[in-house]
C-alpha cells in the first residue's frame, strides 16, 4: 500500500472516529485495549522472600500507533501506572527505554512503536513466605492509563495482573528473556572516563563530550528529559573534532531562564546514555564558546 492510500485510510478512520465520538459521550471514557495490547510480565514466576526482580509492563501496539516516553515532547502524554501490591511489596518508578523521535504535524514527540516494555523493580519483603511458611500466591496488579496515537490520539485504560508464587525458592519465568532485552534497552550511565559539559548561549546550548569515548558508538542525537528546555523539532547539530564531540541544540522558545542543569539522553549508534550536567554560561574566550569549523 502506498503512503497516499494509507493517509486516506487514516483520514477516513479519523473522520469515522469523529463521527462516532464527536457528539457522543460514550467515547469520553478511556477504552480498554484500543490499538494496544497490554500485559504484565516478570523475571521470575516466584516472589521469593527478601528478593528483588524486574517486572515489565508490555505494550504491543498496532502498526503505526505509538505511546510516549516520560518526556512526551511537543504533544502527548506518558503512560501512568497505579500498582496494587500485597503488604510490604514495593514497585519502583517506571524505567523507560530510549525513545524514538516521532514527527507529528510539524511537532516532534518522543515515544515508541511496535513492542515496548517499561520496567519496574519489584521488591519482595522478607517474610513474604506468608504466615507459617505456607506457599501462597502474591497477586500483583497494575491500573494503567495511557495515550495511544497515530493520526489521532485515543486514551486507554487497562488493568493487568500477575500471580507469583511466594516461598523461599526463586523460579525463572519463561518471560525472563524479554525482561533482559528490555533491560538492555534502558539508558545507561556514561562510562566513567567520559567527560561531558554544557554551556548556554542566547539561542543555543552546547554539549561537549570528551575523554575516552571509544566503545560508546557514534553520537547521533540528544533527547531532553525535561519539557520546555530545548526545541524538540530542531535536530541537534553534531560536530566531531577528533576525540571531542560537540552537540549544539536550540533552546526552547518557552524557556525564559537558563536551566541550572541539562538532563537527557545521549543517543549513539549502539546505546543510549543518561546525561545530567550543570549548565554554565559560555565564556567568549573559552574554546567551548565557538563551534569548530567544519573540516
Amino acid at each position: 500500500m502506498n503512503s497516499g492510500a494509507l493517509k486516506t485510510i487514516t483520514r477516513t478512520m479519523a473522520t469515522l472516529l469523529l463521527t462516532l465520538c464527536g457528539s457522543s459521550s460514550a467515547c469520553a471514557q478511556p477504552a480498554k485495549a484500543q490499538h494496544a495490547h497490554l500485559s504484565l510480565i516478570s523475571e521470575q514466576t516466584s516472589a521469593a522472600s527478601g528478593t528483588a526482580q524486574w517486572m515489565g509492563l508490555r505494550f504491543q501496539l498496532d502498526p503505526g500507533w505509538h505511546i510516549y516516553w516520560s518526556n512526551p515532547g511537543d504533544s502527548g502524554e506518558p503512560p501512568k501506572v497505579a500498582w496494587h501490591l500485597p503488604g510490604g511489596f514495593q514497585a519502583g518508578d517506571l524505567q523507560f527505554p530510549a525513545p524514538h523521535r516521532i514527527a507529528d504535524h510539524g511537532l516532534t514527540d518522543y515515544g515508541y512503536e511496535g513492542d515496548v516494555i517499561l520496567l519496574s523493580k519489584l521488591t519482595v519483603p522478607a517474610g513474604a513466605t506468608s504466615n507459617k511458611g505456607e506457599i501462597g500466591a502474591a497477586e500483583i496488579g497494575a491500573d494503567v492509563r495511557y495515550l495511544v496515537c497515530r493520526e489521532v490520539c485515543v486514551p486507554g485504560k487497562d488493568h493487568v495482573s500477575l500471580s507469583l508464587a511466594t516461598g523461599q525458592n526463586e523460579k525463572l519465568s519463561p518471560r525472563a528473556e524479554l525482561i533482559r532485552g528490555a533491560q538492555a534497552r534502558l539508558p545507561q550511565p556514561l562510562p566513567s572516563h567520559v567527560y561531558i559539559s554544557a554551556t548556554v548561549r542566547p539561542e543555543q546550548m552546547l554539549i561537549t563530550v570528551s575523554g575516552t569515548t571509544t566503545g560508546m558508538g557514534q553520537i547521533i542525537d540528544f533527547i531532553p528529559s525535561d519539557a520546555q528546555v530545548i526545541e524538540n523539532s530542531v535536530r541537534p547539530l553534531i560536530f566531531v573534532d577528533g576525540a571531542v564531540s560537540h552537540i549544539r541544540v536550540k533552546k526552547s522558545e518557552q524557556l525564559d531562564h537558563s536551566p541550572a542543569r541539562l538532563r537527557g539522553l545521549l543517543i549513539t549508534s549502539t546505546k543510549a546514555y543518561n546525561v545530567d550536567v550543570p549548565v554554565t554560561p559560555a565564556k567568549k574566550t573559552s574554546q567551548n564558546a565557538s563551534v569548530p569549523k567544519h573540516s
Partner: protein
Amino acid sequence: MKQIRTSVFVVLALFAITALAVKVGDQAPDFTGADSHGQTHKLSDYKGKFVVLEWHNNGCPFTKKHYESGNMQRLQKEWTDKGVVWFTVISSAPGAQGYVTADQENEYMQKMHAAPTAALLDPKGEIGHLYGAKTTPHMFIINPQGQLIYNGAIDDKSTSDPADITGAKNYVSEALQEAKAGQPVAVATTRPYGCSVKYAD
C-alpha cells in the same frame, strides 16, 4: 561532510519556521477570521479589550478533558462576563480530526454549553500558523494594547485525565487576573500540552 551540509540546511529551515511563532511581548499579529455564524472578526477591531485565543479540536482527549468536565466553558463564561473577548479557533484541516462545518460547530457549542465570544473556523490553518499554535488546547492572551501577554498551556497538569483539573494552576485565569490588576504576568510562557493541531500537511 554531505551529512553536515544537509543538517545545516535542515536546521536553518526549522529555525525559519519556528521564528514565525509569536512571542510574549510582541505585537500580536492581526488576522481576519470567519466564525461559525458567518460573521467576520478582525483582531485589531478588538483593541482596548483583552482577547483570548483557544485552539480547539473536539476529538482530542486533552480538549475533551477540559470540555466534558465543563472547565473550559466555566473559563469562557467567567472571562467573557468580565469583558474579555474569547475566540475558540479550529485549525483542523478538512478530513482531519476536529474539522467541523459551521453547523456542526454550532451544534457542538450548544450541546456543550460553550460560551466563547465566537468560534473561528480556520481549516487552512492560517491563523494557527500565524500564531504558531502547536497543540489543542494552546492558549494565547492579547492585552488591550494588542501585545501578546501569554502563550502556552491552559494549566500546569499536562495530562488528558479530567481528575487532574482539580488542584491545577490555571495559567489563563492567573494571567488575566494579573494583567487586569495592572500587574505583570508572572508565568507568561509555558509549554502547551495536548494533541498536535491537525493542520493540512
